[in-house]
């Protein structure tokens, strides 16, 4: 082992690939930390503005209906302490919404309509380096392990060397894989120390990366052969890399997207907008009875006598949400179903599995994104529950009472 370690240290090409792995990992971790810090700073700034703006707006109100209409509330999904390693859904799904008492679904999906999927290949984060680039470097480290010795006329000399020769290939493989793993994981752990990641998370991530590299080492050993020339081995392994890291995931994604169609986020926004706009022209009773289906407790106060009343206005906002409920549910269930299928697919797609595993640890996966959406809905429901008594009981507005407005709990101190 010591002998082979010294040998590896003198192998310039191998050390170059390992150094490159370190540089790429360190770069990805640094960029990830910067992105997370940027998101945190953005949230802190918005949070400050949000509070100031709300205080300002509330001070100008004369009734609860206007207050509910004009006050925005920041909801956010702050990055976890491991998000720097795998930004995952944070690149494609919103992690902040300023919402108000109006129909909610449109407010949630509005961002989707203006936010096309730009992260087709994924961002250059640690997960990307580990899942897609690391195998490439591993291939470069291992493809010519035996064929190179054969080409140099040393294969027989090594294998005829008796006792130690048997273990040579295994030891060389382990050291190269180990060196690559250390080069990848070290920057991750340093980044983790900076971000305050839990030791468990860092160990789990290291284990995942090591297992993934072990898979590739096994594949290189199985697919590459001393009987081939190095370039044949390299071609075979690069083909496998392309297959496993690009073709298979792309095919699986396409198959899954085809099997589970999603309603368009934009459709939800449009449908809701139409429902809300149409409500102005509908008989008020129609709106109110649809509203009362959900809120029979306001039956007694539901009479609308004037041409415009806030309670009617908010009732049709709520009915707007009710109208797109099936679409919105289909959208969420579709995303969850796709995610579940990707989970199955990752059993046959190790690159997907690693990326998913890291995103899970980083809480940047689809589950986390859906959970955040659920928290936003939850919060919006609390806002409604808080405002409805003011509106239906026709209470007088008071800035002081507005202090009791529910606050969104981001579940994390930013």
């Amino acid at each position, binding site marked *: 082992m010591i*002998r082979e370690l010294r040998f590896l240290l003198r192998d310039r090409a191998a050390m170059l690939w390992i150094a490159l792995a370190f540089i790429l990992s360190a770069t990805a971790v640094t960029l990830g930390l910067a992105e997370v810090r940027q998101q945190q700073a953005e949230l802190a700034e918005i949070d400050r503005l949000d509070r100031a703006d709300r205080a300002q707006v509330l001070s100008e109100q004369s009734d609860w209906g206007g207050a509910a209409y004009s006050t925005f509330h920041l909801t956010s999904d702050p990055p976890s302490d491991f998000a720097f390693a795998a930004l995952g859904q944070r690149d494609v799904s919103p992690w902040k919404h300023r919402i108000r008492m109006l129909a909610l679904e449109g407010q949630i999906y509005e961002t989707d309509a203006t936010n096309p999927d730009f992260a087709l290949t994924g961002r250059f984060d640690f997960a990307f380096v580990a899942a897609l680039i690391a195998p490439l470097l591993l291939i470069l480290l291992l493809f010519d392990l035996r064929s190179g010795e054969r080409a140099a*006329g040393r294969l*027989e*000399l*090594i294998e005829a*060397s*008796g*006792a130690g*020769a048997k273990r*040579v290939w295994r030891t060389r493989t382990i050291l190269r894989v180990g060196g690559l793993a250390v080069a990848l994981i070290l920057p991750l752990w340093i980044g983790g120390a900076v971000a305050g990641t839990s030791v468990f998370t860092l160990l789990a991530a290291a284990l995942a990366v090591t297992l993934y590299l072990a898979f590739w080492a096994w594949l290189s050993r199985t697919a590459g052969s001393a009987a081939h020339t190095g370039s044949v081995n390299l071609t075979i392994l690069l083909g496998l890399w392309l297959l496993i890291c690009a073709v298979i995931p792309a095919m699986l994604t396409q198959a899954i997207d085809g099997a589970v169609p999603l309603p368009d986020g934009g459709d939800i926004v449009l449908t809701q907008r139409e429902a809300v706009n149409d409500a102005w022209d509908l008989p008020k009773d129609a709106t109110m009875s649809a509203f009362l289906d959900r809120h029979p407790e306001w039956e007694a106060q539901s009479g609308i006598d004037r041409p415009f009343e806030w309670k009617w206005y908010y009732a049709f906002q709520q009915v707007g949400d009710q109208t797109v409920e099936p679409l919105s549910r289909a959208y969420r269930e579709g995303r969850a179903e796709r995610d579940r299928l990707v989970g199955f697919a990752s059993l046959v797609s190790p690159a997907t599995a690693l990326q998913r595993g890291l995103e899970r640890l980083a809480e940047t996966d689809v589950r986390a994104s859906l959970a955040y959406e659920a928290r936003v809905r939850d919060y919006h429901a609390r806002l409604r529950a808080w405002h409805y008594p003011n509106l239906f009981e026709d209470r007088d507005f008071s800035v002081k009472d507005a202090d009791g407005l529910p606050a969104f709990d981001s579940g994390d101190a930013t």
Partner: protein
Amino acid sequence: MTIAAPAIVVDDLHVSRAGSPVLHGVSFEVPAGSVYALLGGNGAGKSTTLLTLLGFLQPSGGSARVLEHNVAADTAAVRQSVAYLPEAATLYPHLSAYENLDYFLDLAGAGVDQGAVDATLDRVALQAEARGRRMETYSKGMRQKVAIALALLRDTPVLLLDEPTSGLDPVAIDEFNALVRSLSDEGRTVLMVTHDVYGACQVADRIGLLRRGRMVGTFDAPEGARIDTETVHSAFTGRSAA
């Protein structure tokens, strides 16, 4: 010449490479402590014979034994007791002679002490000042000398040397021949492959002449004398002796 138990026994050996037969029933014996030179033209099957003895190629017929170990079945034991000098021996160019020897001897599980290494490099006449330099700066003959030194330092009872003198200058060849004789005197068995009729006659106790995968002649050194170069040369080139 004393009759010793054979260290190497090759019996009716048939070997094919890439589907075509290369050795067509080769038989010979190398007595322990003797020097045997396998002589033959390009493509005769000399290297193939050595590779088969080391278990890198499987016989399709016949058998071969080294120190009583069947080469096909007991490969590990054979490799343990044999030092092999490959035909185109290239050690690691980015390592020095010292580092290469250290690496390969450690690989073979042989203990090395620096004194023995230097003594052996002296024996093959590798310049002292070159020994710590990367081998990519060596000439062909210098590289060959280090490879020979490696085979010697393995300190095994049997040596299989494939064209050990290729790349060596005439002085170095003479020194090498003397070296091989002294190995034999130490009781080690040497099977060497060569094209060099003169050199073979200088060192060998017995010469086997291989032609297109068949043993076509055997020449023994008379008691207390060397094999006659003229006789072997004529047999090798196919011309009758004058």
